């Protein structure tokens, strides 16, 4: 079964794009935001022995990246099911 109608198709694509952009905003925030642009401000905050900005740049952002991809996987699988385009 594919999409029931053109509207469904457009709706699926919109939801996909919205999810992608939301996750990319977080991606940008933790790496370019916390790790680079705001690093000096965040470095004033101690975090488990690290300066927070430095931690984001060398550790934190990478953990968030991993989490982002798995959130995407789960959400997209749900979306595929909801719109009946899941591959199973």
């Amino acid at each position, binding site marked *: *079964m*594919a*999409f029931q109608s053109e509207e469904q*198709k457009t709706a*699926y*694509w919109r939801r*996909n794009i919205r999810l*992608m952009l939301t*996750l*990319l905003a977080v*991606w940008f925030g933790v*790496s*370019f935001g916390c*790790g*680079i*642009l705001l*690093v*000096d401000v965040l*470095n004033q905050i101690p*975090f*488990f*022995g*690290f*300066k927070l900005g*430095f*931690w984001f*740049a*060398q*550790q934190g*952002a*990478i*953990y968030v*990246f*991993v989490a*982002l*991809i*798995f959130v*995407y*996987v789960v959400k*997209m*699988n749900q979306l*595929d099911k909801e719109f009946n*385009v*899941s*591959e199973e």
Partner: protein
Amino acid sequence: MGIQTMTFIVVGITFALYIGIAIWAKAGSTKEFYVAGGGINPVANGMATAADWMSAASFISMAGLISFMGYDGSVYLLGWTGGYVLLALCLAPYLRKFGKFTVPDFIGDRYYSQTARTVAVVCAIFVCFTYVAGQMRGVGVVFSRFLEVDITMGVIIGMGIVFFYSVLGGMKGITYTQVAQYCVMIFAYLVPAVFISIIMTGHVIPQFGFGADLADGSGQSLLQKLDGLSTELGFTEYTSGTKSMIDVFCITAALMVGTAGLPHVIVRFFTVPKVRDARKSAGWALVFIALIYTTAPAIASFARVNMIETINGEEQTGTQYSEAASWIKNWEKTGLIQWDDKNGDGKMFYSGDERNEMKVDRDIMVLANPEIADLPVWVIALVAAGGVAAALSTSAGLLLVISTSVSHDLLKRNLMPQITDKQELFYARLAAAVGIAIAGYLGINPPGFVAQVVAFAFGLAASSFFPAIILGIFHKRMSSRGAVAGMLAGIGFTATYIIYFKFINPAASTPDNWFLGISPEGIGTIGMMINFTVAFVVYKLGAEAPDEVQQMVEDIRYPKGAGEAQAH
């Protein structure tokens, strides 16, 4: 047992393993050769991608690089991991749904143009050769240092092994070998890190030890100590950098986008059965990469403190050369550590100002780490095997892209469309063999500019492939002219900038002369923006993509019916 014998045994066992896998996973068709039949489990594919990605340079040099750069080293950590988020969210699922074998395939079909395909093929081959030359050199260096054969012999042995499993097994052989290589690599990377973390901070997990207090009872945290030492010795504080913010920003962006545009990484997502597997696979790849990339900065800071303390002593006044630790003398023989007793007091002293008497090569940080921390012989042998695994896995992946580009994109899709599957497979193997020979030659006679051209590979991928693929997926009306003009403008600008500052006038390569203060390493970011802008302008001026192409783009947006990777 001596280091030498142990290294022979450990490296020998891993080689036997790789060859065994190659025989077991022999490829029978072009589809198996190009994309492993499209039947790889996503977790295994993630592991193979990570091995493909971790090159000899990142295995051997990255921690050392960060150790010397401090905060500035974050550009590599962020850049080489963040790209996978772009891959997973914006590229991998759609390219998998598209279901062809290569990146030039996508560009050529999506932009219905042989010109676009040819531009893509040339870029792909160039990017891969740049990379592979460095890898073969890495194999040679590890061999010569740990097995005491000369570099030429080392390169030839490495070529032989890669030849065997990539020519025979194609993507299928490579993928399963890479899974084994990842296991060797991660073990070799983590074992010394864990040992050192325990010794220095009492924490088993290096990522925690990184921020913890030192175990020497000083009550100082590792990073406070490091910042203190750095300032005292005339370096910049470890946790803040020397690069300007805009440069850090642009280098990070260029590396991220470049990663997402590298053909040997993208092609890995053609090997899984379904679109949902492509998404998942990118996630697993990043898990396996992150294991190494979050350990690297920890190793970097441990190694830095260790090194400074060993050379300068507890009191920071220098230590007697005659009583120096044995690893200093071992590595002095290789020329990677040099001591010049400027003030004639017989003591070694390391600093960032005129008092400095030491020259320490950054590659030592990982390779000598086990010796510095006095770890058992088998750990040292393991690190050698890990370095070789890193170099072999990356070169194999790159060689496959080269051979595919030649046999599939150039011959089958361009010059000789009438050849059969069997003939195409023969040409693919032939191209892989020739590729290995050229790579080996470059490894033995390295052009002096290998290090400089790495910036090139990322810059080109960032300013050419990435925008073309993104527009191809998310802008279904984008026309062939727009995309080709964009690619040419992006590459043209980036290449000119890099060639000027790296080759024609390296002396002028200072922040004052750079465009907006952006170094050649980061200029790919601007190249990418130029690509997008030019593509849009040219697209607006001409006709949009034909209906059947728009239909195809519609099609790749929905996962249902991904089908198998198609032969044509």
